[in-house]
């Protein structure tokens, strides 16, 4: 589970720190910094997971505009059972060349160092604490990204393998097509690879069965998914719906023919079921951390709360963690029956401040009404 994040000198996030619980709701005006937190998580994930150059991900203009500091600092703490990893990254920008390098990159497991990368030198530590011989490394890249799994670095490997389970998404149904060139293990940031992701997930028959059952309940007429061949490796995802008059006969549609709302519902329930599936989580070795930006977009009003209730249950049982950005009263009013809300705002367009939302006695006005009036925090 994501325990803590610290961000300094990234856009409007200056000396920004946030601790997380099983469910976290980010609220506040537009431009308040909520999406910037998600962006940061995504960049860190790409940096460590996809061997990307630091300057490509953390550009010079990403620094906080009203500060002159050339150093950006990030810290990420991820829990594993009762213990925690701490990842630290400092990036140094060069004003003249507009390039960036890693000032330091460190990974800790509790107080035990696993990796230290500073001044172009990498010091690795085995699981038993023994240090390996240091070596030189290119400071435009993540040293952690290039460590291959071995029997003596399982702790470090677990951290690297956990990062892709951070699903940072703003689902855009119009981008969700039905074509798949290959299986993909994780959904993309816009969920435009849904067909490929489902192609991977459907290998788990149990999950496929459960998803079908769930969608039959929440999507009127939904019957089943089916992949048709469209070339050697290409597949097309089709969705079959029953008709009222002919319950035994289903009509097939290309996935892309479904409405935005239908595709959104499918995406959201797939996320919930994947988060619980044995295969998808490697038998619970890793947990999904869902960072969803406005998940209730495109949904009809009665569709929102049932999904929120399912998500809340999964989170409170510890099966998944959720960080949600929302502006929707239905989500806000339901979720804020628990003290899980964070209000993001920027005074005078400067650094983001975060406050935990505590709904005071306002005579019975809903939290969403207080927010709509601008009375929650002003």
């Amino acid at each position, binding site marked *: 589970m994501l325990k803590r994040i610290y961000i300094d000198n990234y856009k409007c996030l200056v000396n920004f720190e946030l601790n997380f619980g*099983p469910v976290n709701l980010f609220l506040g005006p537009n431009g308040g910094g909520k999406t910037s937190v998600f962006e940061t998580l995504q960049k860190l994930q790409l940096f460590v997971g996809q061997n990307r150059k630091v300057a490509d991900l953390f550009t010079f203009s990403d620094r906080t505009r009203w500060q002159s500091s050339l150093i950006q600092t990030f810290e990420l703490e991820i829990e594993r059972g009762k213990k925690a990893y701490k990842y630290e990254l400092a990036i140094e920008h060069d004003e003249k060349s507009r390039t960036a390098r890693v000032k330091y990159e460190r990974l800790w497991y509790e107080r035990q160092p696993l990796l230290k990368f500073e001044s172009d030198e990498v010091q690795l530590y085995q699981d038993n604490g023994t240090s390996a011989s240091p070596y030189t490394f290119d400071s435009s890249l993540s040293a952690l990204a290039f460590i291959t799994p071995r029997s003596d670095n399982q702790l470090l490997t677990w951290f690297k393998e956990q990062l892709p389970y951070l699903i940072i998404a703003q689902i855009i149904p119009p981008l969700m097509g039905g074509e798949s060139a290959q299986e993909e293990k994780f959904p993309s940031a816009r969920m435009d690879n849904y067909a490929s992701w489902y192609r991977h997930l459907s290998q788990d028959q149990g999950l496929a069965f459960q998803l079908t059952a769930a969608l039959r*309940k*929440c999507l009127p007429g939904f019957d089943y998914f089916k992949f048709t061949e469209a070339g050697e490796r290409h597949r097309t995802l089709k969705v079959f719906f029953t008709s009222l008059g002919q319950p035994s006969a289903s009509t097939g549609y290309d996935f892309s023919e479904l409405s935005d709302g239908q595709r959104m519902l499918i995406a959201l329930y797939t996320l919930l079921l994947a988060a619980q599936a044995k295969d998808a989580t490697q038998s619970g070795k890793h947990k999904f951390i869902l960072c969803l930006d406005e998940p209730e977009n495109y949904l009809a009003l009665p569709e929102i*709360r*049932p999904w929120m*209730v*399912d998500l809340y*249950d999964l989170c*409170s*049982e*510890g099966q998944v963690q959720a960080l949600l950005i929302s502006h929707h009263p239905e989500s806000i*009013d*339901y979720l*804020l*029956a*628990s*003290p899980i809300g964070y209000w993001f705002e920027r005074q005078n367009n400067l650094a983001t401040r975060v406050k935990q939302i*505590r*709904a*005071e*006695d*306002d*005579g*019975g006005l*809903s*939290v969403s009404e207080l927010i709509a009036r601008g009375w929650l925090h002003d």
Partner: protein
Amino acid sequence: MIDYTTIVVLCEDRQQEVFARQFLESCGVDRHRIYPDVCPKGKRAGEQFVRTQYPKQVVSYRKISRRLTAGLVVLTDADVKEVSDRLRQLESALEQNGVSKRRLEERIGVFIPKRNIETWIYYLMGRAVNEEDVYPYLKQESDCKSYVQALARNRREPLLEIAPPSLKTACQELPHIFPEDA
């Protein structure tokens, strides 16, 4: 078993909500047909929220049940009051709002744990409880799940003698929601 189209759970807090939802689901109610109406955190006493919302929910229930198979489950802690007092308060709330009393055939169940829902949960977990002490909140609301599921599975059997009296009283409300259990 009634196939509910919609069943509203009106309650004071998240723990009560989780308890009620788990119970209903274990009794066969489709979880997506359960609509929680929970007092927002930090607001006035959850009890006041339930009392204020109760007449509105009863009116809503009566309207909707003409067209759909609806139900209303109400949970509110007795705290230091008697269960009967709390019930009377709810009935008064109806009267003050010009809403007629709850009728026997209506699928409206009122469940009043004493001293609070944690009393029932700790009892179900096998602990010795009384109806005066305040028991601590669970670390996670969902920690009650398996115990509530067991209660739901065995709901047709009489409770043990040592069960909290408020829980025994609550069981008498069950036929309002599940008439087939009567």
